[in-house]
Structures are given as structure tokens and as C-alpha cells.
């Protein structure tokens, strides 16, 4: 899942971005309001984590312009402004959630994940797709009773495909939602990770759980094994 982090305080920006990436998110970061708007309008982020007090274009104005442009990306505001009026203003401007600084990183992560579930219309943090059970909160995956181990990028890819189970997911979609600007832009990087995933989740001698639709993308069928 791809997240845009907009925060102008470098230590916080750096640590949150690192935490998000370690949690399997593709995270783009910026401390400038104008640049953040440009990123948000140009990329299909799943969640935008937005500070309000930014140099140049402030967070609320950015949010207004984002919504005015018709973007429905979920936005989590993180700010030191804790007055009720500030929260109301933020939520009324189109934010989906509001988190007051200082916060624990775990809470931020949980809220981002909750927004992601909302993006893909899921209430439970546990996804049951075919033989797989994916705990999106703990980032753990089981096939039947056996827990499978994944790298952060593999997990992110699996979670994205599972979130869109039953839908055809193009390579571009995967690229846009699982990789950030810092990822190596090689043409077959998605295919490489799909191959890694298949090795870990497929049963020997059985058809692959992740189906390739030639020239169009990939598909996880949401049917029990």
C-alpha cells in the first residue's frame, strides 16, 4: 500500500517514513505543501498522512484543493493543534481521521491501516482469501494453520492483491500502490516479487493461487481451496 507522508519536521518525517516502510508500506515523503499537492494529484495514494502547519501551502488548503480536484484518497491529519475547533475544521475540510501530536507510532500505523481497510471496504483487520488468512494489523500470514514468512515488500504485494481479491490487478496498479519513488524502477520487479510470493504460498503440484492474466495483470480468486 502506498502512503504519502507530508511532514515538515525532519526527525518525525524520517522516523515515520521508516516505520511505515518497515511495516510494508510504500511511503513517499515531503515537507512542502505545494510539493505534497503535486504528489497527491499525480499518484494514486491509498492514504495521505498530512501535517497541517506546513511552509508554503498549509495542510488544510492542500486538503481543500485535493478534494476540489475530486481526489477521494483517505487523509489522516497529524498536527499539534488539539482544539475541538481545529479537529472540526480538519474533518470538515475532508480529512478521514485526525491524530494529535505527540502520538505513538503504533497508533499512527493502526489508523493508517484502518483507513486502508476502509479503502477496500473491509471491517476486519484479518483477510481470509482462499487458503490464506492475513492479519493486516500484525502483518502475519497463515496458510491453514501454518504461518508463512515474507519480506516487507512481499507482504505489501500480497496484502494489496488480497485487498483486491477477485479483481484483476494490473502491474501499473501494483507499481503505484506498492512501490514508492525510491524503489528501483526495473521492468520486471513486480514479476520477480510475484514469483517469490508464489513460491511461498502455493502448494506443490497445485495451480498457482496468484493467477496471471496475460498482458493485463494478476488475479487472486477469492474462493476457498
Amino acid at each position: 500500500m502506498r502512503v504519502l507522508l507530508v511532514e515538515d519536521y525532519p526527525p518525525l518525517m524520517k522516523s515515520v517514513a521508516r516505520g511505515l516502510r518497515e511495516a510494508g508500506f510504500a511511503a513517499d515523503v515531503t515537507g512542502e505543501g505545494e510539493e505534497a499537492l503535486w504528489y497527491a494529484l499525480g499518484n494514486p495514494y491509498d492514504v495521505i498522512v498530512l501535517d497541517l502547519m506546513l511552509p508554503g501551502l498549509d495542510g488544510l488548503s492542500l486538503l481543500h484543493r485535493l478534494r476540489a480536484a475530486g481526489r477521494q484518497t483517505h487523509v489522516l491529519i497529524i498536527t499539534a493543534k488539539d482544539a475541538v475547533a481545529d479537529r472540526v475544521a480538519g474533518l470538515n475540510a475532508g480529512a478521514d481521521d485526525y491524530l494529535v501530536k505527540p502520538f505513538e507510532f503504533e497508533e499512527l500505523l493502526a489508523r493508517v491501516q484502518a483507513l486502508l481497510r476502509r479503502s477496500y471496504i473491509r471491517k476486519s483487520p484479518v483477510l481470509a482469501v482462499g487458503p490464506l488468512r492475513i492479519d493486516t494489523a500484525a502483518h502475519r500470514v497463515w496458510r491453514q494453520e501454518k504461518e508463512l514468512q515474507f519480506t516487507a515488500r512481499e507482504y505489501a504485494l500480497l496484502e494489496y492483491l488480497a485487498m483486491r481479491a477477485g479483481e484483476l490487478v494490473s502491474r501499473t496498479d501494483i507499481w503505484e500502490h506498492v512501490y514508492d519513488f525510491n524503489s528501483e524502477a526495473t521492468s520486471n520487479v513486480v514479476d520477480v516479487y510475484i514469483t517469490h510470493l508464489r513460491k511461498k504460498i502455493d502448494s506443490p503440484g497445485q495451480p498457482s493461487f496468484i493467477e496471471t492474466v496475460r498482458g493485463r495483470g494478476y488475479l487472486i480468486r477469492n474462493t476457498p481451496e
Partner: protein
Amino acid sequence: MKSLSARLFAGMTGSFALLLIVFGLIIDASIEFMLIREFDFYLETVVRSLAGGIGSDWRSASLRLVPEALSDIPRVEGELFSQYWTDDGTVLAKSANLGNAGLPRFHGKDGRPQAQSLVLPDGRRARAAGMQVSIWPPGAVPESEKRVTIVVARDTSDLEAHLRQLRWLLLAAGAVTMTAAVMVSIAVIRGSLKPLRCAAEAIAAIKEDSLSARIPAADIPEEIVPVVDRLNELLGRLEDAFARERSLTADIAHELRTPVAGMLSIAGVALNSPRPPAEYREALEDVRQIARRMRSMIEDLLTLARLDSEAPKYKFVPVVLREALDLCWKDFREKADARRLTFENGIQADTRCVTDRNALAMIFAILVQDLMAEAAPT
């Protein structure tokens, strides 16, 4: 006595009581004076009447004595006494009720009666009128003129009883009047101080969160209006001060919240999963950098608090301006780099000024912060 109502009550009732006492004393003295005057007038009438009855061929036996000789004078309460003397003090006659005792001899001048108080032989108090009458026996030469002194006394116990009654009456009237005055004073004071009580209640109802409220001056007496106006002005200043304090507190909270969020986030991410020692070290270094910046921020806040509470104590020393600005910029470098802002110190290397180093650092920090907020990335 700090209570205004108590002061007013004491003042009003005290003044009224004093006036009442003075007024009562004047009335008492006036009535006593008039009654005694009337009493004396009666005695003078009696003594004149007795004097008129002394014939030129007077003898002791022909002298009229009170009270027997009062047929032509209205009788009044109180026992009467009379006594006659010749020039040489020989008692010519005296009323029987004097017994063996006598009255003191005195008289007025020029044939006019004179009245005075005296004590009767039996110890009762009395008023008496004395008069001297000149008599020429028939065929006598002018040198043979005789003078007779007449003194008529009247027991004043009835008069004193009347005066006592009058004084009790005055006292009772005074007590009733005083009670009524006290009640009226209480009512008047309460009524007069009601606007003040209302104002006090309005002031008491004003809390920290309702400083925008003002004390209504509509029903306030004119004398109190300036006080209410000053109070309302004070409330306005308090409201402004509280607003400034809230704003400052919010600003401080904001300035502190972000670095605290940074430290929490760094620690949270570092502890989220096992990692090599170098990464822990990096996280700790980041936390230390933030803590140092917070320490600097807290010191600035303490300096501001000190400046607010006491006269600033500056230490003036020669300062190289370029170096001072470079030193200040160190705190902002990381943030500027993150925003791709460049910094160029254009101050000449040898430009110096004599100033307080800390105050100058604070000024530079504020300027740099404001410039960074407005600057566009290069």
C-alpha cells in the same frame, strides 16, 4: 469596620442617635426652663400679692401667710411656705408649716422679686421667690422708711415628678424613634447597596472562561458608575491577557508537541523490530538531537518568563555578527536541508557590535524561523 453597609449603618444610626440625644436634651431643658419659669411666675405673683397686702400700719398680726392667704390666687399643687423679715433680719411672721425652721432670706433689686432654688428645712427641694417692700408708717418722715422682705417657697416635688414623667416620655419616644430609624436605615442601606450587591454577584459569576462578560451599568448609581467602568476595563484587559496566555500556551504546546512526537516516533519505530546496533545508535542520536533542541527551546522560554517577571539583565560584550548568525543557523540547518533551502550569510567578517550574546541569538533565531516559513525552496 470593613463592611460598607456596617459603616453606613453605624454612621447613620450614630448620627441619628446623637441628634436625637441633643434634640431630647434641648427639649428637656426647654420644657424644664419653661415649667420653672411658670413655677417662678406663680411664686412671684404670690409674693407680689403678699407684698400688696402689707398696709402702712402693718403689724405682724396683719401679715398674710400662705397658704391661708391665697384666696385671690389660684391654688396649685405643691406645698407653699412664706416668711417675713424686717431690715434687721427679725422674723415678722412665717407660715405655720415651717414649724421652728425658716426660709433663707433673699430678695430682688429695685422692688422686683427674685426666684431661686432652695432646700426646705425638711430636706425637700423647692423654688422660692423673694421681694423687698418699703413701708412708711403713718406720719413718719422719709428717713423712717421700713423695709420688709418676703420669701415665698413652693415645694417642687410635683414639678420634678412632671419633669421625670416628661423625661421618660421623651426617652420612650426617643427609643421608638431610634428603633424606627434603625429599621429605616437598614431598609435604606439595603436598597441603596442593592446595585452594589448585584454588581458583586455579576463579578462573582465571572470565571476564567467567561471573561467576555461585563458588569451591567444600567441600574448602578452614578457614584458607582466610574468604578464599574474601571472594572469592566480591567475585565477587558484580563480577557486580553488570558487570550494572550492561551495563545502563548498553545504556541508552546505546539512547539513542544512536534519534537516529542518525533522522539516517540523514533523510539517506537526503533523498538518495533530487532535491528542492528548501528540503527539503534542512529535512533538514539536522533533522539538526542531533538532533546538538545528542546532544551534550547525550554531555555528560551525560561528567558522569556524571566524577562516578563523581572528587568532583563544584559551582559554587553563585543560580538562578531557573522559568527553569531552562523551559530544560530546550525539549529536550522537540518530543517532547511529537508526543505531544500539554502543559506547565505552576507554579513562582513569583521562586523562587530556590542550587545548581549543571548538576546542577539534569540533575535537571529526568530528572524531565521520567520524567513524559513516564508522562503521557497531553491
